[in-house]
C-alpha cells in the first residue's frame, strides 16, 4: 500500500484540512516550521526520508491570515531507523503532536511531543504510540487519526493523554539546563563551584554556539576560514583558548556579544567547567575522571538545535535566565507569553491592520523577542508571497531594520531578542553561513532597533533615537506589577523628567541590578505626573504601558497588549473609564478561564487588549468584540473527566470558537463598569435586564437597610444593625508579650471564654444552615489580643442576633450566640427586634439569586473562585426591609425546617456525650449538613421559590439564575464540572426545544399565521435541532426529541451528516453551528448540558432572530 492509499484510507486526501508539502506555505504562521521539516533528508543520509504533508485544524482553508493548528505530520521512510530519525526532528520542532510514518512494512505512529533516544525506555516512553500497523489494519488501529476523528474531536478525547506537556522539548530542555546549572554551581572536591551567573552565561553561550553550528551558520568552511578547531570547542577536549577564539569571531561577525563570560579573574570558569558543559552538549554523559562513574546524564543527543524554532528557543532562554532570580522575576511581573498566544494576538492584529510595506512594529517590553520574532516572520512570509520566492539577504536585513523595534530594561533579554532576530534572518538565507554573500553585514540592532531602556524614561536612548516617531503595530506582554510610593512623590519630583544627577539618591546605575534591570523609578514618576490625565488603578504598570503605547501609535495603528484580566474587573474603575473613553477599543480576549493551562508555573489570568487611536470626534463608540474562551470549548486541550478528578493538559493551541464571540457596547465600556465585560463572559443582555429590573423592583440594598437601622436610637445595650468584616485576634504566650506587642495590640479580657468562629473547619462543607461545634474555638487569655490597626468595629457584629457570612462565600448562618467573627469573614448584626429579618437574610444569602447577583457584581467571581466583600454584599437587593411580621414568620418557619433537616450524618469520631473534652478537641457535636439530603434539596427549592416570589422574578429570570448557579458556574477558572458537561436528559432537551420554540414564536407576528415546529435528534456526542416555520394549522406536534438511530429520524440524520460534511471541524470553531435552508434552520451543538439550558435556548432564539433579520432573501 503506497502512501496515497494510506492517506485515502484516512480520508486525508479528500479533506481541505490536509496540506501536502507543496502547499505548506498556506499555513502562514507555521510555514517556516514545515519548510524546515521538508529538509530532514539533508540530515538523514543513510536512506530516503520525507515529510509528505500535515493535517490541520483550520476554520477557513481558503484564508491566508486564518490561524491553524497542525495535528498530524505524515511522512515516509525506508526503515524503522529512518522513521525514528524523523520522529526525533519532529519532537525538536515542538509544534505537531502526532507523526505518522509509512515504512515498507506498514505504518509507525509517534507522539510529536514525546521522544527518547532509541534504546532508552519503553516504546511508550520514547513516544512510539504504534510500533507497526499493518496496511490492512489502518482503519482498525488508526481510527482515532482518521480525518473525521480529528475534525470531530474524537482523537483528542481518546488520545489526549498522549499529548503530554511534561515530555515536550521545551520542558525537557529547560529541565536539563536547570540541572546542568545546578551541577556547575555545586561544590566538587576536584574543582571549585562556579558562580551562578557565570554558569548560566556559559550554558547560554553553548546553546548559542551549538545552535549556530547545527544550523550550518557556523559551517565547516567558515570555521576553516577562521582556523577554528571545533573539536576543541564541543567535546571532552574543549579548551578555553579555542572557545574564546570562536566566541570572538562570532561576536564580531554577528555584531555583539551575548552571555559574556569572564574568562579572567576569580569568577572565570576553569577548563574542567568548560569540558563538563561541552561534553554535555555533545551528548556525552559526564563521567567523573577519577572514579569513572557516570555522574550527569542529560541526554543532549536528543536535541537537534537546527530544528528547534527560534521563537521556542528564545522563550526557553528567557525562562532559563529567569531561574537565576525567581523572586526578582515575579516582582517584575514578567510572565512569559506562550507562543500560541503570541500567534493568536498577531493574527488578530493583522486582521485589524494588515502588515504593509511601511508597517513599523514596536514591543515596548520585548523580553527575549517572542512577539518581535513572530512579527518578523510574518513580514518575511508576506514579502516572499509578494515576490513569489526567497528573499535576498539584503532584503531580509532591510525588513528587520525598517520594521522591528523593541525596548526592554533587561540587558540579557535585549541581547537574546537581537540574537533571535538575527537567527531568524539567517534561517531564511541559503546557505546560512553567508559565505556566498561576502559583502553582506548583519545589522547591528542593539541601540538602533532594540534598546536596553526603560520605556518610561524620558531621557532614554530609545526616546532620543525614536522619540516622536509613530508605530503601526504595538505588541507585547508588559510587566504586571504594582509599583509602590506613587502617592508619596511630590509634584516637583514627578515633573522632573530630566535624568537624575549622579548625586541623586536613586541614580540609574545604583538602581540597576546585576542583570541591568533598573528600578521602577521612571514608571513611578510617570504615574504620579499623569495621575489625573492617565490614571491607573492600584499602580498597575501594565495599565501605564497601555496608556503610553497609545502615545506611540500612528493614527491608523493598532496595539495588542497582554494585560492582567483583573484590570477589566477590579473594583477601581478609573483606568477603565478613562482609557476606554480615550482610545478606540476594537476587541478584548479574556483568557482568564484558560489560565491554569495556558501558562506554566505562574498562572496569571490574562487578557489581550486590542486598541487604536480614537477618531477625532468620538461621539458614539463602536461596539467592542469580546472573546472569553471556556476550557470546555477547547476541544484539543479539554481535560478528560473521569470520576471526580480531572487530569489537566497544557494548552498547546488556542482554537477560536465563534460561539464565544460577543459584542459589548463601546459606550458601556466607557463608564468603567466591569459588568458589561462580566456579562460578555458569563451572561447575556437578558441577565443585564434581570439585574436592572430587580434593582427597579427592589430599590433597597442591604447596605441601605443597615444604614437605615444604624440611624435608629436603640437605647440600652442594643447594637444597631451593622455589617462588618471581622476582627484580627492574635495569640501571644505570656513570655512573648513585649512592649512592641502591647503597643500594637489591645488585650480584650471580656472575650475570654467566648466562642470565636474557626472557618477553616467549614472548608469542605457546602451550604450550611447551622454551625457544627467544630466551627468554634473557645478563646483563652492568650488569644484575645486585637490588632489596633484593624480597629474594634468588627467586634460589634459578634453580638447576637447576627448572620455570619464566610469570606469564601461558603456559608451564611444565623446565630443567637455571641460569636467572635475573625478577619476576612463578615458579620451582620442587629437589635433583637430585627431577629426575624436577620433569619430571613441568612436564608436569602444562601439562595441561588444571592449567589447569582454576587457572581456578577463581585470583581473576582467568574475569574477565579472569588471572595465575597462587604461592598458586594452591600449591593445586594434587600427585599425584607418592609416585610410584615406575619410574612417574616414564614421565613422563620423555613429556617427552622432547614436546621431540623440537617442532622443527617456524623463526620469524624462520634462525640462522647459525657465528655466535654471531645468538644474542646473540635469533634462534631452538631450534625453536619449532607448536601445531597433529599429534604434539604426540597427545602432549597422552596427557598429559591420564595426568593423568586419576593423579588418578583419571572419564569425566564428564574431560569437565568438557576442555570448560572447550578451549571455555568462549574466552568469558572477552567473547571470542567460535571453538571455542565454531562449529557442533558431527554427531558432537558425537550425543555430546551420548548423554550426555543416559544421564544421564536413570540417574535413572529400573529398576522403571519406561522409557527415553529422543532425536532431534536441526538446521539452520544452531539445533537441537531431543526426549526421549521410552518402554517400554525399544519403543526401536529410542536416539539419532538428523537435518537439519531431511530427510524423516524433518518431524514434528519441525513441533514445532520450533510451539515457535518460541509463544516467538518465545527466542533472546534463553532459549537453553536447554525445553518439556514429555505424555511428551515438547523442548529448543531455538542451534547453537553451547558449548551442545552433553558437560558441558552433564550440566547439561541435571540441569535436566530438577529441572523434571520440580517440574512438575505433566498434567491
Amino acid at each position, binding site marked *: 500500500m503506497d502512501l496515497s492509499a494510506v492517506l485515502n484510507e484516512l480520508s486525508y486526501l479528500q479533506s481541505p484540512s490536509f496540506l501536502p508539502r507543496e502547499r505548506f506555505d498556506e499555513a502562514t504562521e507555521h510555514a517556516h516550521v514545515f519548510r524546515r521539516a521538508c529538509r530532514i533528508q539533508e540530515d538523514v543520509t543513510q536512506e530516503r526520508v520525507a515529510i509528505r504533508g500535515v493535517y490541520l485544524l483550520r476554520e477557513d482553508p481558503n484564508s491566508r491570515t486564518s490561524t491553524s493548528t497542525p495535528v498530524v505530520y505524515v511522512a515516509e521512510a525506508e526503515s524503522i531507523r529512518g522513521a525514528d530519525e524523523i520522529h526525533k526532528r519532529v519532537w525538536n520542532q515542538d509544534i505537531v503532536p502526532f507523526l505518522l510514518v509509512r515504512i515498507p512494512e506498514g505504518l509507525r505512529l509517534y507522539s510529536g511531543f514525546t521522544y527518547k533516544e532509541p534504546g532508552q525506555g519503553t516504546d511508550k516512553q520514547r513516544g512510539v504510540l504504534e510500533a507497526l500497523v499493518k496496511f490492512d489494519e489502518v482503519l482498525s488501529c488508526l481510527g482515532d487519526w482518521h480525518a473525521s476523528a480529528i475534525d470531530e474531536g474524537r482523537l483528542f478525547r481518546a488520545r489526549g493523554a498522549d499529548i503530554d506537556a511534561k515530555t515536550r522539548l521545551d520542558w525537557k530542555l529547560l529541565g536539563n539546563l536547570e540541572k546542568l546549572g545546578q551541577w556547575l554551581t555545586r561544590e566538587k572536591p576536584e574543582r571549585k563551584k562556579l558562580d551562578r551567573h557565570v554558569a548560566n552565561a556559559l550554558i547560554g553561550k553553548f546553546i548559542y554556539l551549538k545552535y549556530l553550528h547545527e544550523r550550518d551558520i557556523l559551517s565547516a568552511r567558515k570555521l576553516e576560514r577562521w582556523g577554528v578547531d571545533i573539536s576543541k570547542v564541543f567535546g571532552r577536549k574543549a579548551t578555553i583558548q579555542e572557545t574564546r577564539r570562536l566566541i570572538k569571531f562570532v561576536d564580531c561577525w554577528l555584531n555583539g556579544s551575548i552571555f559574556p563570560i569572564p574568562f579572567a579573574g576569580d569568577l572565570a570558569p576553569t577548563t574542567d567547567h568548560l569540558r563538563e558543559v561541552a561534553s554535555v552538549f555533545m551528548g556525552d554523559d559526564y563521567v567523573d575522571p577519577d572514579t569513572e562513574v557516570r555522574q550527569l546524564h542529560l541526554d543532549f543527543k536528543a536535541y537537534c538545535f537546527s530544528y528547534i524554532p527560534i521563537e521556542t528557543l528564545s522563550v526557553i532562554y528567557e525562562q532559563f535566565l529567569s531561574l537565576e532570580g525567581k523572586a526578582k522575576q515575579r516582582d517584575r511581573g514578567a510572565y512569559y507569553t506562550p507562543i500560541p498566544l503570541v500567534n493568536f494576538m498577531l493574527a488578530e492584529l493583522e486582521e485589524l491592520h494588515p502588515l504593509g510595506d511601511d508597517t513599523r512594529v514596536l514591543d515596548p517590553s520585548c523580553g527575549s523577542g517572542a512577539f518581535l520574532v513572530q512579527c518578523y516572520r510574518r513580514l518575511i512570509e508576506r514579502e516572499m508571497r509578494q515576490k513569489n520566492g526567497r528573499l535576498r539577504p539584503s532584503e531580509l536585513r532591510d525588513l528587520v531594520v525598517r520594521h522591528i523595534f523593541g525596548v526592554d530594561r533587561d540587558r540579557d533579554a535585549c541581547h537574546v531578542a537581537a540574537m533571535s532576530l538575527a537567527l531568524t534572518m539567517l534561517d531564511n538565507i541559503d546557505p546560512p553561513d553567508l559565505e556566498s554573500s561576502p559583502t553582506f553585514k548583519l545589522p547591528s540592532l542593539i541601540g538602533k532597533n532594540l534598546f536596553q531602556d526603560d520605556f518610561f524614561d524620558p531621557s532614554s536612548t530609545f526616546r532620543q533615537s525614536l522619540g516622536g516617531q509613530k508605530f503601526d503595530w504595538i505588541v507585547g506582554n508588559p510587566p504586571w506589577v504594582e509599583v509602590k510610593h506613587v502617592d508619596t512623590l511630590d509634584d516637583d519630583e514627578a515633573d522632573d523628567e530630566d535624568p537624575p544627577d549622579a548625586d541623586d539618591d536613586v541614580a540609574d546605575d545604583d538602581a540597576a541590578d546585576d542583570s541591568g534591570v533598573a528600578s521602577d523609578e521612571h514608571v513611578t514618576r510617570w504615574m504620579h505626573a499623569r495621575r489625573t490625565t492617565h490614571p491607573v488603578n492600584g499602580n498597575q504598570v501594565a495599565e501605564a504601558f497601555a496608556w503610553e503605547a497609545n502615545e506611540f501609535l500612528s493614527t491608523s495603528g493598532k496595539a495588542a497588549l497582554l494585560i492582567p484580566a483583573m484590570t477589566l474587573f477590579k473594583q477601581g474603575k478609573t483606568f477603565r473609564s478613562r482609557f476606554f473613553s480615550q482610545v478606540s477599543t476594537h476587541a478584548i480576549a479574556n483568557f482568564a478561564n484558560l489560565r491554569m493551562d495556558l501558562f506554566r508555573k505562574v498562572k496569571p489570568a490574562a487578557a489581550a487588549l486590542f486598541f487604536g487611536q480614537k477618531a477625532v470626534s468620538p461621539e458614539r463608540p463602536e461596539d467592542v468584540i469580546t472573546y472569553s474562551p471556556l476550557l470546555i470549548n477547547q476541544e484539543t486541550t479539554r481535560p478528560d473527566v473521569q470520576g471526580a478528578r480531572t487530569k489537566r493538559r497544557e494548552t498547546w493551541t488556542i482554537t477560536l470558537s465563534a460561539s464565544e464571540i460577543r459584542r459589548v457596547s463601546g459606550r458601556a465600556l466607557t463608564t468603567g463598569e466591569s459588568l458589561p465585560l462580566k456579562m460578555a463572559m458569563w451572561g447575556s443582555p437578558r441577565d443585564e435586564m434581570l439585574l436592572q429590573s430587580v434593582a427597579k423592583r427592589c430599590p433597597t440594598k442591604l447596605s441601605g437597610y443597615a444604614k437605615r437601622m444604624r440611624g435608629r436610637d436603640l437605647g440600652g445595650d442594643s447594637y444597631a444593625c451593622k455589617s462588618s468584616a471581622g476582627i484580627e485576634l492574635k495569640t501571644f504566650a505570656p513570655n512573648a508579650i513585649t512592649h512592641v506587642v502591647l503597643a500594637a495590640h489591645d488585650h480584650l479580657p471580656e472575650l475570654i471564654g467566648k466562642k470565636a468562629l474557626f472557618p477553616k473547619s467549614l472548608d469542605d462543607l457546602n451550604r450550611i444552615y447551622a454551625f457544627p461545634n467544630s466551627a468554634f474555638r473557645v478563646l483563652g487569655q492568650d488569644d484575645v489580643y486585637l490588632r489596633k490597626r484593624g480597629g474594634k468595629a468588627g467586634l460589634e457584629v459578634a453580638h447576637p442576633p447576627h448572620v455570619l457570612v464566610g469570606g469564601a462565600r461558603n456559608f451564611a448562618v444565623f446565630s443567637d450566640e455571641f460569636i467572635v467573627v475573625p478577619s476576612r469573614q463578615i458579620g451582620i448584626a442587629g437589635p433583637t427586634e430585627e431577629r426575624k429579618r436577620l433569619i430571613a437574610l441568612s436564608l436569602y444569602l444562601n439562595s441561588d439569586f444571592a449567589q447569582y447577583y454576587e457572581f456578577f457584581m463581585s470583581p473576582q467571581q467568574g475569574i477565579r473562585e472569588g471572595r465575597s466583600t462587604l461592598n458586594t454584599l452591600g449591593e445586594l437587593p434587600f427585599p425584607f426591609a418592609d416585610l410584615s411580621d406575619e410574612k417574616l414568620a414564614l421565613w422563620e418557619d423555613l429556617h427552622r425546617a432547614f436546621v431540623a433537616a440537617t442532622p443527617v450524618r456524623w463526620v469524624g469520631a462520634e462525640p462522647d456525650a459525657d465528655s466535654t473534652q471531645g468538644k474542646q478537641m473540635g469533634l462534631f457535636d452538631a450534625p453536619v449538613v449532607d448536601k445531597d439530603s433529599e429534604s434539604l434539596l426540597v427545602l432549597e427549592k422552596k427557598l429559591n421559590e420564595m426568593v423568586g416570589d419576593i423579588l418578583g422574578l419571572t419564569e425566564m429570570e428564574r431560569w437565568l439564575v438557576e442555570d448560572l448557579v447550578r451549571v455555568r458556574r462549574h466552568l469558572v477558572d477552567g473547571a470542567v464540572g460535571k453538571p455542565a458537561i454531562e449529557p442533558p436528559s431527554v427531558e432537558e432537551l425537550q425543555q430546551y426545544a420548548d423554550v426555543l420554540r416559544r421564544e421564536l414564536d413570540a417574535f413572529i407576528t400573529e398576522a403571519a399565521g406561522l409557527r415553529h415546529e422543532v425536532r431534536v435528534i441526538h446521539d452520544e456526542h452531539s445533537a441537531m435541532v431543526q426549526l421549521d416555520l410552518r402554517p400554525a394549522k399544519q403543526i401536529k406536534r410542536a416539539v419532538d426529541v428523537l435518537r439519531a438511530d431511530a427510524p423516524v429520524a433518518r431524514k434528519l440524520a441525513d441533514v445532520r451528516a450533510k451539515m457535518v460534511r460541509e463544516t467538518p471541524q465545527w466542533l472546534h470553531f463553532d459549537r453553536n453551528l447554525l445553518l439556514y435552508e429555505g424555511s428551515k434552520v438547523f442548529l448543531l451543538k455538542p451534547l453537553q448540558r451547558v449548551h442545552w439550558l433553558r437560558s441558552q435556548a433564550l440566547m439561541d432564539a*435571540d441569535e436566530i432572530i438577529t441572523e434571520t433579520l440580517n440574512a438575505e432573501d433566498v434567491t
Partner: protein
Amino acid sequence: MTMTSQSRAVQKQSANRGTFWDSFVAKVHLLLSLGYQHLCQTKGAMALTSEEEPTITGFLVTCMQEMKDRVDWRLFIEDDPPLNDDGRKGRSRPRIDIQVTKVGRGIQPRFQFEAKRLYTKKSEDKYLEDDGLQALLTGYYAKGVRDAGMLGYVQQDTPDEWAEKIRKKLDANRLGYGLDPSKDCWSQRNDESNLEHSFSSHHPHCSRPITVHHTFLLCHG
C-alpha cells in the same frame, strides 16, 4: 480565524427573512403606537401644536422607552443617533430621528424613522424631498435594510388629509420615487399596532428596493 473576521456578519440566506422583518416592523409600530398613546395621555396632543420636530421626537422616544417592556424588552430606542454607515466619522455622520434596534448577539438589526412636521404647504415637500423620504430611498438613511419609516407630526388639518396629499404626490411622480408603475403605490398598514393613519409604500426601483411605512400622528388639539 480571528475574532474580528468572525464577528463580521456572514450574509446567509433565509426564506423566513420576510416574515421576521414583517414581525420586527410590526413590533416597532406597536411600540410606536403605545408610545404615542402614552404621550397623548401624559402631555396631550394639544401641547405639541407648536413644538419643533426634535422636541416632539424627544417626547415620543421617552414614551416609547417607557412602553418598551410591554412589547419586547430587546428593543433599544434612540433619539437622533449618528449613523456609522459609509465609513463617515464624527460630526460628519448623518443622524436619523428615531432608531429602534433589536438587541442581540452580532450585527443588530435596526428600524429607522425620519420625522417631519406637517403644518404648511411647504411641509409636503420637506416630507418627500432630500431630507425626508428621498433620504430613505437613496440610502442616505436606512442603508442596507428593507424597511424604514416616515413619521408625520400633523400640526394642522387631519392625518387623513396629509396622508392623501402625500399619496397623491407619490402617485404623480412614480418614476422619481422608484415606485412600480403598474401597482397601487399606497396601502393601509394592517398589523397589531392598530395605528389609525399608517400606510406603506413599496419602492422597488430606487437604489435598492425598500418599503417605507408612513405614520401620521395627530399633534394638535
